[in-house]
């Protein structure tokens, strides 16, 4: 099974996209994340910036790009909230780094792997958010674990649908 064949992935499965995709897809994710909750109300159980961070981090050969992308997406999300800038930034930086690190070691073309990865990394993102908010900053925050669970499930479902669509935008040799 080629799931853990890291060298194979490093050589052959580096995803490349037009620059426009790198610019517009994260922007679209941020805009939709800001707009859809106005439509869906409290049933907006997803975090599109996490999904996009995981997607682009998985396809890159080094964790640095995933780390930077996660940091940028997180800081952007923080800027739209009324919280301190950096809480989501730290959480998604870690997610981007982990996704890129894992992506160099396993076969991320498998839908089941993608679904599980998104589920786990979404939970990691939520846990990092709570850790930074409550432990690092010492602020009061009420949170419910099942909201994070629903969000992780929502991210996984979106990833299963969205990743193949984004794969079509790759630059093929």
């Amino acid at each position, binding site marked *: 099974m080629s799931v853990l064949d890291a060298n194979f992935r490093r050589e052959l499965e580096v995803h490349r996209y037009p620059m426009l995709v790198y610019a517009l897809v994260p922007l679209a994710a941020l805009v939709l994340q*800001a*707009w859809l909750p106005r439509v869906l109300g*409290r049933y907006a159980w997803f975090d599109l910036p996490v999904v996009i961070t995981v997607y682009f981090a998985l396809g890159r050969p080094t964790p*640095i790009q995933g780390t930077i992308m996660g940091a940028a997406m997180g*800081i952007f999300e923080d800027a739209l909230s009324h919280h301190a800038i950096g809480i989501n930034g730290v959480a998604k930086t870690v997610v981007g*780094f982990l996704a890129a690190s894992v992506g160099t070691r396993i076969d991320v073309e498998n839908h089941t792997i993608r679904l599980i990865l998104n589920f786990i990394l979404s939970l990691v993102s939520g846990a990092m958010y709570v850790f930074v908010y409550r432990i690092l900053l010492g602020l009061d925050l009420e949170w419910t674990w099942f909201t994070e669970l629903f969000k992780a499930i929502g991210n996984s479902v979106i990833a299963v649908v969205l990743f193949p669509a984004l794969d079509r935008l790759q630059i093929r040799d």
Partner: protein
Amino acid sequence: MESFFGRYRDLVVLLAILLAQVIGLAVQVRHTAGGQNSFDPQDESGVRLIRLWANSIVSPPERLIHGAKLGSGSLWLDYLDLRHVRQQNQDLQKTIDRLRLEQAALLEDARQGQRLQALVAFQQKYIYKTVAAQAIGSSGSDQSRVFYIDKGANYKLARDMAVITPDGIVGKIRDVFPNSAQVLAIDDQTSGAGVILETTRTRGILRGNALGQPQIVGILADNRIQPGEKVLTAGGDLIFPRGLPVGVVEKVARDPERENFIDVIVKPAAHLDRLDEVLVITATAPSFSSQQQQDLTDSESLMGAEAAAIKEQKKASEIMAERLPGLKDPNAPVVNPAANPGSAQPGQNPPPPPIPELGQPKMLHPQHPDRFTPGTAAEIPTDTSAAPTPDAPDAKPDPKQANPQQSPPRRNP
């Protein structure tokens, strides 16, 4: 050294980015006097700049999407689905006419109330000027329940202005950008609004919980607080005017952290999840628009005409009363009960004091007197208390007393 960075380059970059963000976070958090940490309510210039950039990037697409949504909806509603519109227009026009008259009367009452409140130096705020705005986006995070509206500093919006809907309060403006503003909703954990329960008059602070439900915290356990009770703004927070609807009590739960305290979960009156149009209260100083002034003038003129008609009617009745023959003999001797105390029956009220003759109209002597003519001694009743007086022209004589033959016999004690 070079090989160290080359070998651990990924980790070094990760740690550098994390460290930079942690330092940035430390700058933005303040340690309060109460021993708790909190966000700096006023963003520093660098942080504000980042927020401004993010808002500038996200707002235009959000406006586009929101406009497209409104446009597609209005295409159907404004051009296709027009059945019964003419009849509805007529009904609405009648309703407007009626409401304008009612509003004029209410404005008069409001103005009178303000005068009275000014007298007692009661600082009550009234909503007199609002700006309508559309909700175009949100933070995207359920931990940060803020949303953005499409009006900003260009419409003279400012921080801490109250945001409401006709149903109830929504939140307050937290940050203002040139063409948009960030509104902190009342269901956010960091929000705070002074509220009062309508029936029990219990005051508390409203803020959101983890599930996004507004709840009143810090209330001592009280069995009188029951689901369904209305919650209104208390006006003490200097943001929301007093008496605006907030919602109704949904349930009462024990405070998990403090004994003998309860949390009152409130079902908000405004639909916080589905906000489209909101109103920002931009002025609370008493002032009336030109239309309201016109309505007030109309009201006063209407009220003046009505009062003049009533006065004219009263005057006519007085004239008629004067022209009718009186049953009191102006020439009869005045009975002074004080001079004859034994005339009053025991157990009965003393007769009314005599009417002073000064100021009584003098009646002309009739040319052809008959038995009904005042002044005929045989027909004058002995009791003068029922005679109409100039002070009470509408008073009618008691028929029993006017005809003493039909009155029941008195018993002597």
